């Protein structure tokens, strides 16, 4: 039994996500974490931008803000500074957080505000029609790269670590138990915590790259097709439904964890010191 089901806005369900969408699994895990961590949703505010990932805050019965494209972290910064007693969780996608709102993301990490940022990384702009995103891997096919992507992609975790985030982790929709632990630790961490969650876009990324439907794409996250993963020049073979293994070579788990003063502490916000670690 998922205790988080109590937190769903029943009248909004079923959600709009496509069949087999990895975001749904992250929502599943996130509500479980929230239900086990917090006695009341009055302590939690969820802030999201625009995109498939950001839609999921609409299904959680907490304080939720659905804001402008890429600016979720700016709204969250204002919210956190005015209501420091809230636990603020920012839900963003790779296009929303790294593309449109990349500037906000790196500066939020630099300020080390006590936020938790969960980035749903499906390597494409899903909601607007499957365009190229900054995280799309080289050679991948999208709506705007019909001959394959020629640009190198972002490693979101490495970027955020360099920007000064004090907690950086990477999880996977395929491993909900690992993800649950990472989300728990990220929320418990004092300071800017960032979780890069690898999910799937079945409808655009999976279809354009002939990677199969929902479960095929999900299982491709774990198939250790190392001989394919090591060599990007073998992209024609990668299009085979048998594997999209590039994620497998990305490191998973808690990648970086340090402690340094948060912005709230520097500003001496009232009552903030009382927040338990």
């Amino acid at each position, binding site marked *: *039994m*998922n205790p988080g*089901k*109590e937190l*769903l806005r*029943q009248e909004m*369900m*079923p*959600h709009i*996500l*496509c*069949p*087999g*969408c*990895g*975001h*749904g*699994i992250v*929502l*599943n*895990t996130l*509500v479980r974490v929230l239900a086990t961590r917090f006695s009341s949703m009055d302590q939690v505010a969820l802030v999201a931008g625009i995109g498939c990932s950001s839609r999921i805050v609409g299904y959680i019965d907490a304080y939720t803000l659905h804001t402008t494209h890429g600016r979720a972290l700016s709204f969250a910064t204002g919210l956190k500074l005015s209501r420091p007693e809230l636990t603020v969780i920012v839900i963003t996608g790779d296009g929303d957080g790294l593309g449109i709102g990349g500037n906000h993301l790196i500066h939020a990490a630099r300020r080390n505000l006590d936020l938790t940022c969960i980035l749903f990384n499906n390597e494409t702009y899903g909601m607007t029609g499957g365009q190229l995103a900054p995280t799309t891997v080289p050679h991948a096919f999208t709506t705007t790269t019909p001959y394959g992507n020629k640009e190198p992609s972002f490693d979101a975790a490495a970027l955020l670590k360099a920007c000064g985030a004090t907690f950086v982790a990477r999880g996977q*929709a*395929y491993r*909900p*138990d690992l993800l649950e632990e990472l989300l728990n630790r990220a929320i418990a961490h004092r300071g800017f915590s960032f979780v890069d969650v690898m999910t799937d876009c*079945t409808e655009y990324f999976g279809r354009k790259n002939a990677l199969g*439907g*929902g*479960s095929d794409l*999900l*299982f491709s996250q774990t198939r250790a097709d190392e001989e394919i993963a090591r060599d990007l020049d073998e992209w024609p073979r990668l299009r085979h439904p048998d594997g999209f293994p590039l994620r497998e070579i990305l490191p998973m788990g808690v990648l970086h964890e340090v402690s340094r003063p948060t912005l709230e502490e520097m500003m001496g916000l009232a009552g903030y010191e009382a927040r338990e670690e």
Partner: protein
Amino acid sequence: MIDPTQMQANIVIAGVGGQGVILAGNILSDVCLAYGLDVKKAEVHGMAQRGGSVSAQIRFGSEVHGALIEKGRLDFAVAFEWAEALRWMPLLSPEGTAFVSTQEVIPPIALRDRVAGRVDYPLELVHHPRIRAIDAPSLAKEAGNVKTAGVVLLGALSMELSFSYEAWIEAITRRVPGKVVDVNLRAFGYGRRGKKSVAPYSARMPEPLVRKAWLHLEESWCKGCGICVNVCPERIWVLNERDVVETVSAERCTGCGLCEKLCPDLAIDVLTDLGSQALGHEGGNVLWQSN
């Protein structure tokens, strides 16, 4: 009884790793050697650490040239485990006797039904005319240590061979660790006296760890992505013609919760608690409920 120095026999001692098959074979060989007999012994013990079968073939007589026993020439089979006896039945000669312990050691991969703990165990052997089923573990427990079950069976075997009791005692004393010599000698005595045949009964099967599970599906939320269909280890979910999942044999559910955690639509609930836990929302139907 014939003169022990003129005796000739082919014996197999079989069991599962850890039961002392090799030790029992050594004891028997020692007894034969004490009478100046020629002994050849072949052991198979490669799979012992994985709970696999272990066996020792022993041939002795005034002159023996090879250790392996021909089909139909096996005089005595001593099996420490019920199913291991089966392997040697084709070799048993028409006059041969098998001493079989009623102990059952079930390897995990042979446990066919993880929910109910059922195994297909060969019980028809009990009615075989040349089987002597012996409840060795309980006799051994009576002697003081259940690990001496093998010696109980050796005791039963010793009644069929014309070696003297003293020779057996000496071999056992030399072979087993000093602290447990008394227990082993007592177990050996029980085996010599114990003529009773005990049928194995299913009540001795290990109690399975049963996790009771209820499955609950919110049909209107399911979009038919098929993740649960592919992820379920017991293969209990299928997609129906409306592209909605349904269960084919929900009673096989072990309550692992993989489908619940990986369902993107949050449509599946796996309830593993006992008692009547209220479901989180309305409109669902309980697909299967264990008794």
